[in-house]
């Protein structure tokens, strides 16, 4: 019981040729740069973009000859596509009503979903008058109201500001956890892929360049884009507050110290560390104000022109950016022993549950 698709089609000048598999309750992220054809894949799955060859199967049933309106699919469009003249409630009830369910029943169901989205009191506001974050939540509620088997989310967080994005990400994680079907999330943000998806497909120039879990891609990125994508250090583990604005993040065998507010409860969390915030030493540094000192071996060095990206075999695995001058001065080379140092305040907790 899953989704199995091979999509070959044209989108403007781009020729798209991808194969995807996704299983229920294991959200799949399609990650790629702009113009990679991600949205085309979503539209093809939804039946809005004609495919020239290939097949789309959901739970073993072919959708090839099924028009968009009859596919068991819900879509959250990149630009939301809400019905501007309808209220939030009418938007969410639309797909249920369209299937002939009585108005009262459909509206009750829509109200329940809006309540779940924290929008219960905004039900009668016209979609055009909703804020970006509210509109996005309505779009998600609308896409799942008719209980589709497949939920497609096209850049669900891209249009939001940083604050709304964090809230929406947590809400989406909750929605996806409760969604029993197959979910596919298109994004260009590795944080979304890391926090929302089980598996990741990297898509570039209309092709899949890598597929696997985020960890697998981080360990062995196959393309420059994938390397860049996972170049951000994403650290997942169990957070345990220590008071005084710090907490430990236990990654099972390795432990780092992160800065956080004291209100954060213990639990699973993901943290982000920018490679540029990591300092490398050739010898064990004397204790300083930086709390995190990780020993490792240089696994790869990539000179991108403006900086040198150094990947360490360490626990946790760390990616550091240094200048070319520093790389030369330190004599960095594959296999060399180094110490990576970073401050607790530079590790940012991005999600908590």
């Amino acid at each position, binding site marked *: 019981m899953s989704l199995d698709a091979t999509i070959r089609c044209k989108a403007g000048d781009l020729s798209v040729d991808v194969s995807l598999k996704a299983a229920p309750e294991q959200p799949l992220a399609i990650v790629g740069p702009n113009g990679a054809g991600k949205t085309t894949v979503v539209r093809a799955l939804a*039946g809005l973009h004609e495919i020239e060859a290939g097949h789309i199967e959901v739970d073993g049933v072919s959708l090839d000859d099924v028009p*968009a*309106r009859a596919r068991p699919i819900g879509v959250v469009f990149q630009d939301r596509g809400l019905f501007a*003249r309808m209220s939030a409630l009418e938007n969410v009830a*639309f797909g249920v009503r*369209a299937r002939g369910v009585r108005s009262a029943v459909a509206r009750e169901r829509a109200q329940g979903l809006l309540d779940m989205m924290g929008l219960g009191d905004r039900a009668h506001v016209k979609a055009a008058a909703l804020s970006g974050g509210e509109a996005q939540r309505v779009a998600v509620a609308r896409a799942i109201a008719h209980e589709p088997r497949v939920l497609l989310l096209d850049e669900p967080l891209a249009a939001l500001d940083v604050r709304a994005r964090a809230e929406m990400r947590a809400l989406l994680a909750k929605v996806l956890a409760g969604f029993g079907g197959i979910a596919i999330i298109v994004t260009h943000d590795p944080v979304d892929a890391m926090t929302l998806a089980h598996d990741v497909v990297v898509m570039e120039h209309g092709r899949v360049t890598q597929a696997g879990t985020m960890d697998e891609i981080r360990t062995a990125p196959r393309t420059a884009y994938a390397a860049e994508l996972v170049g951000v250090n994403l650290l997942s583990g169990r957070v345990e507050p220590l008071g005084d604005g710090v907490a430990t993040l236990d990654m099972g065998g390795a432990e780092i110290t992160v800065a956080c507010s004291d209100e954060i409860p213990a639990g699973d969390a993901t943290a982000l560390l920018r490679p540029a915030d990591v300092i490398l030493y050739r010898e064990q540094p004397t204790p300083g104000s930086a709390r995190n000192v990780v020993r490792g071996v240089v696994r790869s060095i990539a000179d991108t022109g403006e900086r040198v990206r150094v990947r360490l075999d360490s626990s946790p695995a760390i990616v550091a950016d240094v200048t070319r001058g520093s790389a030369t001065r330190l004599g960095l080379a594959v296999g060399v022993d180094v110490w990576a140092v970073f401050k607790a305040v530079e590790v940012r907790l991005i999600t908590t549950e």
Partner: protein
Amino acid sequence: MRNDSGIPAAMKAVAAVAVAAVALPLVALIARAPWRDVARLADPGPRTALLVSLEVSAAAAALALVFGLPVAVVLARASFPGRSIVRSLALLPIVLPPVVAGVGLLAAFGRHGLLGHALSSIGIHLPFTTAGAILASAFVATPLLILTVEAGVRALDAREGEAAETLGASRWYAFRRVTLPALRPAIAAGLVVAWARALGEFGATITFAGNFRGRTQTLPLAVFEALQTDTGSAILMSLLLVAVSLLALIALRGRFLTR
């Protein structure tokens, strides 16, 4: 403060002259009107003509909507061979001399016209009847509605239509719930221009429906008739037409046209 967006002085001058040229005849009508005789508008002649005009123009606008809306949607959305020819044909009455439209209608629906026999055998007589006046007005007014609504359909947010599709809406359900409400301003604007065109219709009406008081004599025909004998009365009826048009424009503007 700059608030003229760098418009050349000469262009502003020509624009002022053009606006004055439009305003002058209106001012002249008001200046030359025999205001002492204004009560004559309530006489049976002008009053009947006004009623016929309102009936004919309203019915013509309704016909324009019934037939023009589907044409507009098809022209905007469908692609088929010969589409541009069909579109030219549908919009032809805009550029066609109204009197030619009248002659054409006679040739089609007149007593000896192509469909005349068939129609009269089932008891429908169009020439020189109120129905004929309505048909003539609708004939010239419908393309204006088509043009307006077609532009409205093209400006519709395609994303809403796609969203409706993925939500399982049938074509008809999506049209009724999504397309039609979004088209309301364009339809209102189309109705206003079609109605205004029908209200002022002269050539096709007099050719096809004649000039019979109480049946086909609309205000413009009454004005034309009065002009030969009683200029004052013609001017007063003209002002009445101006007033009716302005009132309708203002009433509709508040309701539909501004969003």
